[in-house]
């Protein structure tokens, strides 16, 4: 009986770890894929910049995925930053910050500079972030704040909106 309980506990400990790693891989891949459904107001930039602010949960994954790749015909540049000032000219911003006040500042900055904001934090989209990307029961769960994307002058194509579990069109 004790052995059985011990076995279940051990399996229970490893499953989330396994699931988490897989989700990270998907998250890393999806960052680039979101770009296919987004149209930015300024298309004259020479590089396509993906920025991570605060912690980097992907380790070298993003480098491996996007090194020498192109998005919208532009070479990809990855940036890992900690300060809001460093996100200038970014196209996609992945936010891992837990501090809500900080996040709000970043969202406001991003809206003014037409930056696509993505985060896995709960309530991110409701607070003005554009895409909230979660995994529920190993399935993709998207919440898109359409109103925020309009304010950011970012156009999201309908197929992406179609697969979102929730699309925020007005202030809640």
């Amino acid at each position, binding site marked *: 009986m004790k052995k059985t309980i011990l076995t279940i506990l051990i399996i229970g400990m490893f499953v989330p770890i396994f699931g988490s790693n897989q989700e990270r891989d*998907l998250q890393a891949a*999806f960052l680039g*894929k979101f770009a*296919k*459904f987004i149209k930015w107001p300024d298309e004259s930039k020479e590089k396509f910049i993906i920025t991570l602010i605060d912690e980097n949960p992907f380790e070298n994954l993003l480098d491996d995925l996007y090194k020498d790749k192109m998005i919208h015909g532009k070479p990809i540049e990855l940036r890992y930053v900690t300060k809001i000032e460093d996100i200038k000219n970014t196209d996609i911003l992945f936010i891992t910050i837990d501090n809500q006040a900080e996040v709000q500042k970043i969202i406001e900055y991003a809206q003014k500079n037409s930056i696509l904001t993505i985060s896995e934090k709960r309530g991110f989209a409701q607070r003005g972030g554009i895409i909230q990307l979660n995994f529920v029961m190993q*399935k*993709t769960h*998207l919440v898109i704040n359409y109103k925020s994307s309009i304010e950011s002058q970012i156009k999201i*194509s309908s*197929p*992406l909106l*179609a*697969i979102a579990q929730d699309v925020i069109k007005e202030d809640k």
Partner: protein
Amino acid sequence: MHNYSIRIKLILLLSLSSIVALLIATISNLTYYYYDDKDRVINASINLAEVSGKNIAASLMFHDRDSINTILKPILENTNVKYIKIYNNNGEYFTSIGENNNVKEDKLSSYEDIKVSVSFDYINILTSITYSNERIGFLKMMLSTDDVKASMLEQIQVSFLIMFATIIIILILAFWLEKIFTNPIFELLKAMNELKKSGEFNVNLVPYSKDEFRELFLEFNNMANEISKRDKILKDNNLSLEQLVKTTQNDLEKVSILASTDVLTNLKNRRYTMDMFEKMIQKARITESYLGIIMLDIDHFKSVNDTLGHHAGDIVIKEIAAILESNARENDVVGRIGGEEFLILCTNSDMDTTFNVAERVRKKIENKVISYEDNKTVQVTISLGVYSSIPKLNKEELMKVSDEALYRAKKSGRNRVEKGIIK
């Protein structure tokens, strides 16, 4: 086929031609319809697959099976769609909807953008899923051909129904149209039969069309009229011929009479009398009856001619001939066989009867005063030799017996009758 009437042949010809044409048209139409319908269904299926692929592009990109199922589910409302399988860009199975029995997780073996395979029951379509000109996966769709088959079956049923109705109309038309051809022919036949029965060639068929039958009718009328004219000529000629035959017969009779008659006396001449003599001998032999022979000669006729002239001689001969003719019986033959010699052949007359006839004639002539000129007369006598028998002798022998009796009458003083004797 040769035994059928022209009416049946025409109906068969018209019906078969039309039915064959109809069959060819129907089969061609069905074949065209089948291929057209198949192409339409395949193109529609390809479009459906491509549109479905576009609709699920985002879902596939973000590995969202639920969205894919949600987006594709309405497609399954089309009962022809059996299942849809989605593969990622590496050809690995991602998800599927539809009939579970047919859905197996597998890996694509080929990476063609569009691949269509059609069997009798199913249409399989493989198309790539792209987004922004970039291939992100594959969609495999299997559709049932039930609708195509049902549509085809319906089309066949309708076609055969129309064909059946058309065949009925064709048959009715064939029965009607054949009359256009056969009525003039039967009209001609009827006219020919009437012509044959009546023998009257003055027919006038009225053509009721302007086609070749009109020419045929007119030619038939011309031919009949021509025959009528020739018939008239022939009849006229026949009448002439009959007249000619009749005239010729009369002439022949006349010639025959002339040939058998003595011109001066109108009695039978020698040749005819001798022919009759032969025949009467034969008849008497057969019937075993008597044949009487009276041979006579005018006494001293030469002196009549010499003293009174040939004219008076001829009158004497005529008068004697008339007496002989009037005193002979109906079936007796009276002939002049020489200048002043006569022969009377008496049927069924024995010696006594023959003798009596001869005697009666002799007396009549003896008493006859013959006027040969005004106020000038002459009387003559005759000598006669008679003989009668059921003939056993021939003509010449009988003539000889009679002639010898005549000779004895002359010798015995003339104006008398002597019976012939067989020595």
